[in-house]
């Protein structure tokens, strides 16, 4: 079995069965084995935690956005208390304190964690590599338009951009604006227009 990796970092570790074991992979294996031997974790718990994380994906966030687009009262609750509104839809947010920031007619929001990689994982799954890397973290607070342009997103001059830096206990999701021409769409169809990138704020939702 081989994986095609679209990356050009030579420090990115190979998939588990490809190539020799790296020092840090051996460290992971050893720490895990010792913790299991000491009864601190079990192999089942490790497996379950991985499965739980794998089950989280931007589809959860898309469901929230689609509901907010369809239900004005829900949207108000979402903006007032992001965590509670997600839990209303059966999404387990754990200890996450979610703040949802709303794109408006001439206001665009974008999320970053300049200090590390804080991200609403319980809602969107694991963050993409670029979100955690130097270029994005350094530049999006200072030149958001240029960075968004690199994602193919052009924010018109007359709009304001607000960058949210997740420096402490809150986590963020952008509520994009509902695209034009979507009046007849049901929630499932609306959710299909919502990408991870538009909930981070580096893109706009897809057109219908």
């Amino acid at each position: 079995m081989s994986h095609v990796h679209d990356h050009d970092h030579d420090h990115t570790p190979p998939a588990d069965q490809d190539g020799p074991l790296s020092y840090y992979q051996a460290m992971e294996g050893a720490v895990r084995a010792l913790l299991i031997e000491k009864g601190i974790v079990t192999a089942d718990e490790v497996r379950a935690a991985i499965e739980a994380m794998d089950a989280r994906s931007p589809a959860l966030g898309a469901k929230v956005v689609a509901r907010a687009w369809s239900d004005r009262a829900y949207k108000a609750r979402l903006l007032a208390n992001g965590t509670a509104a997600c839990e209303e839809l059966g999404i387990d947010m754990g200890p996450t304190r979610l703040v949802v920031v709303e794109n408006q007619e001439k206001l665009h929001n974008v999320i970053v964690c300049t200090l590390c990689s804080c991200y609403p994982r319980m809602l969107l799954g694991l963050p993409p590599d670029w979100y955690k890397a130097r270029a994005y973290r350094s530049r999006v607070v200072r030149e958001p338009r240029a960075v968004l342009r690199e994602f193919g997103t052009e924010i018109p001059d007359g709009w304001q951009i607000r960058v949210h830096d997740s420096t402490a206990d809150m986590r963020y999701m952008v509520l994009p604006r509902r695209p034009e021409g979507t009046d007849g769409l049901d929630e499932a169809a609306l959710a299909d227009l919502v990408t991870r990138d538009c909930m981070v704020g580096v893109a706009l939702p897809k057109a219908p």
Partner: protein
Amino acid sequence: MARFSPGDPVQVQDIRPPGHIRTPLYVRGKTGTIERICGLFANPEELAFGRDGLPLRPLYRVQFEQAELWPDYDGPAGDAVEVEIFEHWLEPAGRNAP
């Protein structure tokens, strides 16, 4: 009891201590406006070293105009950055703060 309320002008302490600090360098010494009180949380600077970080203290979201943060910012006025900052990093800013 939170010291600041939404709308209050505040200035970030202009100090650079070592340690685990969650107030990024780019806002140190800068003036912004309280956008909201997030709640009470333990101090990450202490949690990072295995201590309990108590007492809980207010965490705020503070809005900074981009023009205030970067002398050469080339976007429109009204572009902003919003950052979570703990109360102990903030002082009241005067109306005519430099």
